[in-house]
């Protein structure tokens, strides 16, 4: 009988989704602004504000999940080996740099914030990889899936914000190219995550259990296939439209759904001892 982890619940999912989306949003907004739009600041500023807000919400989720909230400062103590400590540092410094940037609009600060946002996204992927008791997380593809999912939801939020900026049609066109790119990458990674022949038996079992495979396929459709189709349909119409916002909503929803599946549904615990399909360990006391 397979048993899911019950240590991390909806609050942990909140951190992975909100924090990852916030960092992904900043990464997308900064890259589009710097490399393609030549320094248009209003969209970047709004994106920065939303990104900071999302990351703070994510941190609040972590704080609420912790058993001893008054000792929260201790989370910074093991940067040497713990990805959770690293995530805390990346998130905190990102929020500080983002706040400075809102007032100072400085390229150096923005570049630093961009790097810390990338660090935050990266560390979230590795947090799961280091959890050896959960086969669905211990998969080497898991970090890639988490990173691409965070960037996808970031671009989704960027599209939703851009929807309210009627003058930024060039940015929207580029963002839609970004949608094509990130949807394609996400499609490849999420498909590979579920179908790789090198997957552990436990992960294969997890995907076969309790309708998880169907839900996972649905998450690929919502989070990758439909946004990709929309971006291809609208890719040459450089103007805001309902479809662009729809692509944004789908990317955000797809990312949330994927992370929900990984964190809460596929997270079966590695059996202490596996003696074949007919084995059963009684007194699974937790």
């Amino acid at each position: 009988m397979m048993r899911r982890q019950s240590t991390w619940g909806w609050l942990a999912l909140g951190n992975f989704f909100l924090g990852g989306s916030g960092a992904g949003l900043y990464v997308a907004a900064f890259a589009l602004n710097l490399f393609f739009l030549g320094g248009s600041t209003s969209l970047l500023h709004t994106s920065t504000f939303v990104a900071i807000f999302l990351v703070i919400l994510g941190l609040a989720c972590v704080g609420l999940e912790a058993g001893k909230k008054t000792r929260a400062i201790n989370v910074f103590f093991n940067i040497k080996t713990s990805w959770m400590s690293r995530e805390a540092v990346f998130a905190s410094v990102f929020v500080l740099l983002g706040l400075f940037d809102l007032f100072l609009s400085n390229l150096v600060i923005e570049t630093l914030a961009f790097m810390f946002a990338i660090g935050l996204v990266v560390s979230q992927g590795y947090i799961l990889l280091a959890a050896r008791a959960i086969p669905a997380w211990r998969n080497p593809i898991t970090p890639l899936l988490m990173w691409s999912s965070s960037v996808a939801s970031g671009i989704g939020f960027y599209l939703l914000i851009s929807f309210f900026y009627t003058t930024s049609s060039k940015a929207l066109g580029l963002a839609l190219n970004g949608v094509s790119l990130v949807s394609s990458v996400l499609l490849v990674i999420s498909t590979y995550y579920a179908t790789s022949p090198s997957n552990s038996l436990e992960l294969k079992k997890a995907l076969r259990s309790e309708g998880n495979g169907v839900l996972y396929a649905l998450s690929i459709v919502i989070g990758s296939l439909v946004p990709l189709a929309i971006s291809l349909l609208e890719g040459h119409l450089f103007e805001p439209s309902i479809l662009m916002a729809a692509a944004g909503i789908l990317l955000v929803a797809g990312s949330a759904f994927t992370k929900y599946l990984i964190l809460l549904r596929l997270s079966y615990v590695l059996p202490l001892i596996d003696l074949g399909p007919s084995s059963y360990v009684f007194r699974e006391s937790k």
Partner: protein
Amino acid sequence: MAVNLTKCAGCQTCTMACKLDNKTPPGVMWRNVRDVEFGKYPNVKRFFLPVQCMQCLHPSCLEVCPTTATKRRPDGIVFIDYEKCIGCGYCVLACPYEARWLIREIESYYSKVDTDSLGTAASFRENHYKDLVGICTKCDFCMDRIDAGLKASKIVGKDPEATPVCANSCLANAITFGDLEDPSSELSRVIKDRHAFRLHPELGNDPSVYYYW
């Protein structure tokens, strides 16, 4: 530590000895004995698997702990500094041996009326539990007991005063405790002669608890 699975009768005496000595809260069992059944009717087999913290040489819990509350002593014992732990639960997900217990709330053994009538003993225990709410706990090989025993010139694994209570309490004498690094110890001999195995060696934790038939 090495456990003889042929001898283990699944009596759970070690579970209770650990619980009593370490005063763990209701539902928390740092050491417990799993009842394992395998095969297909009519060829079904059953054995008992005592589990606890494996005191790994490369503990994944120590690596992921963001607070450095999890530590490893030079003698190999992995323990938690309960004053530092924030109860994030990350170590629970990193430990493949289900050895860690994150205590979110304490379910009392007693009703309020019972606690009042039982007096100081019960209320002491209830208050002791309150300190554990919100943090992670686990077996530490009775390190305080071992330290005290060593201080009194007792021998680890031979004298009960320097041996974990689970090993002392085992009715079937199924548990061998000692120094893994001493090739002449009873523990090292048993592991070598009986071809002892460990749980999930593929994960790289390098656990210090061995099993043999």
